[in-house]
């Protein structure tokens, strides 16, 4: 077998060009075309391309190879070109330049539930969705029981899915997608949806797939999942591939790259997904006790995290909150601005307008190291308006923190100043039972 036999995906100089404004005015009307045709008859007649200033390269000159059986991570900020790359590789859209070579059937978990029809029953949707995902009828029939069991909706399999809870709907959709057994699996952020239990199941299934020696392309903002599931990771930045490295190195590069330095993250209009409406994020900031926006804060001082946002319309049941993670991807906590009962009663229904949600992380709480803040704006179990996993990172400086006199690295994400009571007990039984050498030193 020669080397080419082991290639699953080969991407060469791949690029995708979009016309700017395509997102604002998603389609043109006949009138627009007629108007522009009369305004610029020559251009219209000669069918000239639009001037280059009107276009943007969402993906530009990306080249890489994926070996069979390899699990490759793909990370990058929103708008870095991750989704465009996946769309090209799963043949949803055509590249504008370059080429890609794909060996084997591609299945993607980015289209969980695609083609599900609310009026059809679970059973009917499995058949339909399977066909949409490219499964043969015999294959669907063979796996039907397994799919139903995995989804856990046995009892409602003959009920129209419009009566399903969103969780059931999602589980069924994922179950079908997870059973299609493609040679190449493309996964994009499915893990961001569903409850913790379901996410575990998804990750488990992904691990299985990887373990079976199939090729996986895993796009995620979840750094711990990337570190756990992939060996190598590519980093995309503004449509370009800037790094391919072992995942730990790539994650480290990504987290410490440019944008993370300032103590502030602002969202440009083109970074905000259309479906976040009416929630419009403006900025996320970290401030020290003096109110300055900084990147490095002291463990011994409190720090403030604030999210500025605008509601273009009222949202009922809104909660805006943060996740805090270590750079190793461990979740430290999740907190929402309406966690407190009183706040909840006052602010759960918010009219349109500008808002600032601000929280204080107490002094003597975080250990030294770098931390990641993620933002979430959602209504409980109904809708996630906005989610941004790695909005901002900041550094905690340990000077003055408990235990600094020893200058050692303390493990763990938190470094609390605990109230220690030390009792010196003269009549301690220690003296009588102790081994002479060891206890002697302890008593000093």
């Amino acid at each position, binding site marked *: 077998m020669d080397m080419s036999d082991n290639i699953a995906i080969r991407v060469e100089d791949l690029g995708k060009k979009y016309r700017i404004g395509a997102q604002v005015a998603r389609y043109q009307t006949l009138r627009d*075309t007629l108007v522009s045709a009369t305004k610029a008859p020559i251009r219209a007649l000669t069918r000239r391309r639009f001037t280059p200033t009107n276009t943007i390269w969402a993906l530009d000159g990306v080249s890489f190879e994926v070996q069979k059986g390899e699990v490759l991570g793909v990370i990058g900020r929103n708008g870095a070109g991750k989704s465009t790359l996946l769309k090209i590789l799963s043949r949803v859209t055509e590249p504008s330049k370059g080429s890609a070579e794909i060996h084997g059937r591609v299945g993607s978990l980015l289209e969980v539930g695609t083609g599900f029809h609310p*009026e059809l029953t679970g059973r009917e949707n499995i058949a339909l969705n399977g066909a949409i995902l490219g499964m043969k009828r015999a294959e669907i029939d063979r796996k039907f029981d397994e799919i139903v069991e995995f989804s856990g909706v046995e009892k409602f399999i003959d009920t129209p899915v419009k009566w399903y809870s969103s969780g059931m709907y999602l589980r069924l959709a994922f179950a079908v997608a997870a059973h299609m057994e493609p040679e190449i699996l493309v996964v994009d952020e499915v893990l961001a949806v569903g409850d913790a239990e379901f996410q575990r199941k998804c990750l488990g299934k992904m691990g299985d797939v990887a373990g079976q020696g199939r090729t996986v392309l895993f796009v995620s903002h979840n750094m711990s999942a990337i570190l756990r599931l992939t060996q190598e990771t590519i980093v995309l930045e503004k449509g370009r591939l800037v790094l391919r490295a072992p995942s730990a190195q790539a994650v480290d590069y990504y987290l410490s790259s440019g944008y993370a330095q300032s103590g502030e993250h602002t969202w440009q209009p083109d970074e905000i997904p259309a479906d976040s409406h009416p929630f419009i994020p403006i900025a996320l900031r970290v401030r020290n006790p003096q109110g300055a926006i900084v990147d490095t804060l002291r463990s011994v001082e409190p720090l403030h995290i604030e999210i500025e946002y605008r509601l273009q319309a009222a949202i009922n049941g809104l909660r805006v909150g943060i996740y805090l993670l270590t750079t190793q991807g461990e979740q430290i906590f999740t907190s929402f601005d309406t966690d407190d009962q009183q706040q909840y009663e006052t602010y759960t229904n918010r009219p349109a307008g500008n808002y600032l949600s601000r929280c204080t992380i107490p002094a003597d709480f975080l250990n030294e190291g770098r931390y990641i803040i993620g933002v979430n704006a959602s209504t409980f179990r109904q809708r996630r308006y906005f989610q941004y996993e790695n909005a901002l990172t900041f550094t905690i400086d340990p000077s003055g923190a408990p235990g600094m006199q020893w200058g050692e690295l303390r493990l763990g994400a938190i470094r609390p100043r605990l109230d220690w009571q030390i009792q010196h007990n003269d009549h301690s039984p220690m003296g009588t039972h102790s081994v002479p050498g060891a206890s002697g030193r302890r008593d000093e």
Partner: protein
Amino acid sequence: MSDSAITRKTPEEVVFLKPSRGWIRLNLADLWRYRELIYFLTWRDVKVRYKQTVLGAGWAILQPLINMVVLSLIFGRFANMPTDGIPRPIFTFTALLPWGLFAKALSDTGRSMLANRSMITKIYFPRLIIPLASVLGGLVDFAIQFVILIFMMLFYGFAPTLAIVTLPFFLLLALATALGFGLWLSALNVLYRDVNYILPFLTQLWLLVTPVAYSESVVPEEWQWLYALNPMVSVVEGFRWALLDAPAPEIGTLLISSIITVIVLITGMYYFRRMERTFADLV
């Protein structure tokens, strides 16, 4: 490269993705590979169509019956259009069968790409399947209506002649015409949403220039060639000929209609394929 493909146990599909330029191949083989999806999407459209309606599939019967009554009243009682001596209700109903199939297919197809937006932006499959399934979805209604027509034929005492063997041809002509124009409209609709507003007028006007409620004999001889440019003229005449022993369509009319349909269908497929690469970005 190619020798390894022979020695390999299971043939592996290799796909090359490149920007396409100019006119693209139709790639009908791909369509064949996805034939099960055509079936499933058609099945979905049929299954969903009359969900949560009181009358259910009764609508498939009621719609042409109401149309029949209305058209018979207007064109018979008020305009007194000729029917070649055939009782007006069955004269109209026989034409409404292929017309209903065509009109529904045309408007469904025209809107099909937008209606299936979520699939188009998330997953690959030959896009031609969507308009194709929209056209085929009408066949179930057609079959139900055909049963009603058989009862009407028994009631009015029409026995089919040998000409009935040509019926599949005229049915196919109606489907091909609907698909041809539907492909143009659905692709244009992705670019220009004006199509949504044009569609109702288009089908209304088209009905007036199709001899559904009147006999084509009202059209003056010197304009017949122009009239023949509408393939649905041949379809409707063909249906009446095959089922009610009405005068056969002129061979010239038939030829013009067929050529028009073939041209529209082929150009429609190429235009659709050409636009296909931008569907996911524009829809």
